[in-house]
Structure formats: C-alpha cells, structure tokens
C-alpha cells in the first residue's frame, strides 16, 4: 500500500509539473506583448518600461520565468491580473466557494439519485425498471447547457419556483440559487451512474454466492445489503468518482448559463479578455483539483477491492 501511494504521489507530482509547464508555455506563446497590455499601447518613458520589465520579470529567459511563476504558485501567489491590477489569488478566493458548493451539491445529487435509481431499477422488475431506463435515457441525451436552458424556462420563467440568475445571499438563498445549476450539471452524470449501478447490481444478483445466500434462508434485505451491494460498490465508486472529477471543468458551463460568479465562469471571461495571469491561475487550480480527485478515486478503488493489483486501475 505504501509503495502504491508513493508511486501514485510521484506520478501526481510529475503530472502537475508537466501540466503547469504546458499551461504556462501555451499562454507564453500567445501573440501580443504583455508590455502593450500593461501600458494600453501608449508609449512610455524607458525608465518606466525598465521598471515594468523588472516587476513582471519580462527580461528573464522563459524557463526562469516559468520557474518563478510555478514556485510562487506553490506558495499561493499566482501573480497579478494585468488589466485588473489585482492579485490572481484574491480573485480566485472570491469565487472558488461558489464552484465548490456547486460541485458538492451536484455530486450529492449524482450519488443519491443516480445510485438510488440504479438500485431501484435493478431490484424492481417490469414497469419500475422501464421507468428508470426511460429517465436515464432522456437525461443521458441532455448536455449541461441544454438542461440549463430547459430548467431555466420551466422552473424559473414559467413556474417561478427558482431564481434563474445570480448567486444569492445567505446560505438558504444561495442553496436556492444553486439548485437549478446543480440539476443541470447532474443530468448526464446521473444517467451514466444509474446505468452502471443497474448493470453492476444485476450482475451481482445473478452470481452463485447470492443464490447460495438466498437458499441458506437469509432475509432478502440482508442478501441485498451484504452480498449484492457490497460487491457492486466497486464499479459504482469508479464511475461516480470519474463523473465527479469531470464536474470540475464542466461547472464553467452552468456557471455561465446561470450567471453564477464562480471560478469556471470567470475563467471563460478571462479567456475572452485575454487576461493571461488569471487564465493560467484558474487552469492550474482546476487541473490540480482534477488530478487530486483522480488520485483519491484510485486510492478508494484500491481500498474497496483488495484483489486489484495496486496501481493499475481497470483499463
């Protein structure tokens, strides 16, 4: 286990190094000089120019600049937004809470509704299972932005149950503002989790050890709880983990659709305004969160299924 953890951590560090290099390098190659952005295209006296170059390390070679950026990022300093004259870490700090709340609420919906529907579909027969299949088929075809628009129209504009734009104040109001975005974000993933859960539980139900348990006269509830669900938990955990990790990037779509002041929506805005320091900072944070989530899934997987050779997730 320790060797597995060590190898996984080494891979994590390597991935982050290469990914951060790619993020920094890509934006370094972008056309347009940072001096022009700083001065707004006006000509400036040479001493001011030298000062600016000094301050933003513009005269250093590329690798040195990358290293300065990366090491200060590790200390929580992601540089400064040039158009806004504000620290990127401050800008991120103001918005990361909304994104975390949104992802967590969505994850809760995915786990409760997805796993729940899957189990109900697998255990129930006939029309119950048919209903579950119908729900999962419909929601599988609903990408987040489509679900967002439909939910906004039905529950926001027509019924007026939920607000369609903005963050809200106070915990309950914020929750109310996040309900529709979380549902929109969850739609596709719920379908996926439902399907995987349903198949996994079905497969376990047909296994011999389950038949043995039934013929031994164990109560059905016990059989399901201890023999079926526990074994089905492995593929379910994997798919839940993967879908939750994917939410980190997809949150940008619903945040934009619902006018939420979150990290993703801000990243999109910064990309449009060519505010490179912000794009770099948020991308780094998102990649970091994504990679960490994947490591957590791997570890959870290894703990859940001791038979798995550590380090090789099902490929």
């Amino acid at each position, binding site marked *: 286990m320790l060797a597995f953890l060590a190898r996984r951590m080494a891979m994590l560090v390597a991935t982050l190094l290469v990914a951060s290099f790619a993020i920094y390098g890509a934006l370094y190659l972008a056309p347009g000089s940072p001096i022009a952005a700083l001065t707004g295209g006006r000509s400036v006296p040479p001493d001011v120019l030298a000062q600016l170059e000094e301050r933003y390390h513009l005269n250093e070679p590329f690798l040195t600049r990358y290293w300065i950026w990366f090491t200060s990022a590790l200390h929580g300093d992601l540089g400064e937004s040039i158009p806004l004259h504000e620290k990127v870490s401050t800008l991120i700090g103001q918005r990361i809470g909304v994104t975390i709340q949104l992802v967590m609420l969505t994850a809760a919906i995915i786990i409760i509704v997805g796993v729940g529907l899957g189990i109900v579909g697998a255990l129930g027969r006939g029309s119950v299972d048919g209903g579950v299949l119908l729900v999962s088929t419909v929601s*599988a075809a609903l990408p987040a932005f489509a679900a967002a628009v439909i939910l906004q129209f039905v529950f926001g504009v027509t019924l007026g149950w939920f607000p369609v734009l903005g963050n809200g104040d106070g915990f309950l109001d914020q929750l109310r503002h996040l309900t529709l975005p979380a549902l929109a974000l969850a739609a596709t993933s719920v379908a996926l989790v439902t399907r995987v859960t349903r198949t996994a539980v079905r497969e376990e139900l047909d296994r011999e050890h389950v038949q043995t348990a039934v013929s031994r006269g164990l109560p059905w509830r016990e059989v399901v709880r201890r023999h079926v669900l526990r074994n089905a938990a492995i593929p379910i955990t994997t798919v839940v983990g993967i879908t939750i990790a994917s939410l980190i990037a997809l949150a940008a779509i619903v945040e*934009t659709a619902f006018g939420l002041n979150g990290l993703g929506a801000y990243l999109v805005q910064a*990309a449009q305004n060519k505010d490179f320091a912000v*794009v770099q900072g948020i991308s780094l944070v998102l990649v970091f969160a994504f990679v960490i989530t994947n490591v957590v899934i791997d570890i959870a997987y290894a703990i859940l299924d001791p038979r798995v050779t550590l380090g090789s997730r099902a490929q």
Partner: protein
Amino acid sequence: MSIEILDPVADVEEAAPSRRRLRQLGWVGWLSIGVIAVALLLAVLGPVFAPFDPNSSDLSYANVGPFGSHLLGFDGQGRDVLSRLMVGARTTVFGAAFVAIVAVFIGATLAIVTAWFGGKIDAGVSVGVDVLFAFPGILLAVLAAAVFGPSLFSAALALSLAYSPYVARVLRGAALKERAMTYIAALEVQGFGAWRLCVRHLLPNISSLIVAQGTILFGFAMVDLAAISFLGLGVQTPQADWGVMVSDGKTSLLQGYPLVSLSAVLCIVAVVAAVSFLGDRLDTSSKGVRR
C-alpha cells in the same frame, strides 16, 4: 474478419453481417439513421434549403412567433429561426466530424505504434497520455481560445487533442491482442515490413472498433463544441450555429419567449441521441463479431 471458421452458425452469420445488423436495428435505430441523414443533408445543403437569409435581421419582428412561411418565427434580433437552424447545422456537424476524425487518427496512430514497438516507446507515450488525461476537454478548449483567439477551429483542435488519449487507450488493448496473433508473426517471418503489416493487416482488423470509437466521439464532440460555442469561445455570433443559437436565444427565453433556444437544443439533443444510440449498437455488434 472470420475468426471462428469452425463454427457453422457463426459462419452463416458472418456471411451477411451487414444485413443482420440492419435487421437488429429496430424502429429506434431507423429513426436515428433518419435524424443523422437529415442533419448531414442540412450540413451540406443547408443554405440551399433555407427559405430566408439567416443573417438578415428586422428588429420590428424581434421575438415574433411562427406565422406564414416563417415556420419557427423570429429570434431576438428578428432573424428567421428555421433558416438559422438549417444553416447552423454545418458548423455543428462538420466541426464534430473534424474532431472525431482527428482524434481517432491521433489515437489510432499512438495505439498502433505503442502496441507494435512496446518497451520504451510504449512507456514514453503512456506518460504523455497520462498528462493529457489531466486536461479536461473543456479546459483545453478554453486555453486554446485564450491563446489563438476564440474560433471553431481552435476549439475543434483542442477537443481532438483532449479526446485522443481515450481513443489510444481503448485501441491499444485491441492492437496488442492483434499484435500477438500468429498470423502477424508468420508474416513477419516472411519478411514483411512493420509499416505494411500495420497498415494492411493490423489496422483493418481493428477497424470495426475504430469506427465505433469514432461514432461515439462524434456525439461527445457535438455536445462539447456546442457547449464551447454556447460559452462564446467557439463559433462566433452572428454566424448561425446551434450552440450559438442556444446562447443567443437566452435573453428571449428569460423574457418568456423560449422558441429560439429550445429549438436549437432540440436539434442538438436529437442528433446526439441518435448518434449515441447507433454508436452503442456499433460497439456491441462489433464486439459480437470479434468474439
């Protein structure tokens, strides 16, 4: 293709695999084919069919519902919605096709090269693939938009890159299996070169899997491209595109006139559902053939 020559039943089925597949489709399958055919037709000839100019706007008709020959009414800027849907099929369909083809090309090349040579090349490529996995497609597209400026091309390129590791991972397993087959060893002994063996023998034998992957990716690409255009980082308004139309129509939708956004959403969902249904079918039937 025929692996189980000894099994007479399998042999008969192999004789007409395409016909058997068609019979298995069912009405949902035929409906899916119909939806995709219409989308393709519009992608090629949309501007010919469009009854009105998709970009001529008349603000006095803003958000006016369907009447006369304007079957779907007008959008918030008084442009004919049906015409914009027809013309917008092009960027949506061709953009997704571009992504699927490029991603499958990169992924299949990586898979075959790593499976063929193994060893250090395999290990090196695997590390690269692992790093690419750290970038979700949407994030890569946002980065591309920041660097190259927002356009359909930069979004499509970013998505192709983001999808290729998935293709590589799936195809690598199949390519490895094929690589270990005795017929490959036999041909190698006869002195055929690696290039010829890969292109003429290995590639055709994993082609059904490649087609299935491409179909599935096409669906994903349509959703992601539309989402990126919806964010304003793909196809740029005022050009007609389904993703752009969803976001263009949002103001009207919030004012209680949902037709523009919802009709574009319906188009996207219909094509994506059709593609994913057929993709699943191709995937399982190709597995059936290979077993």
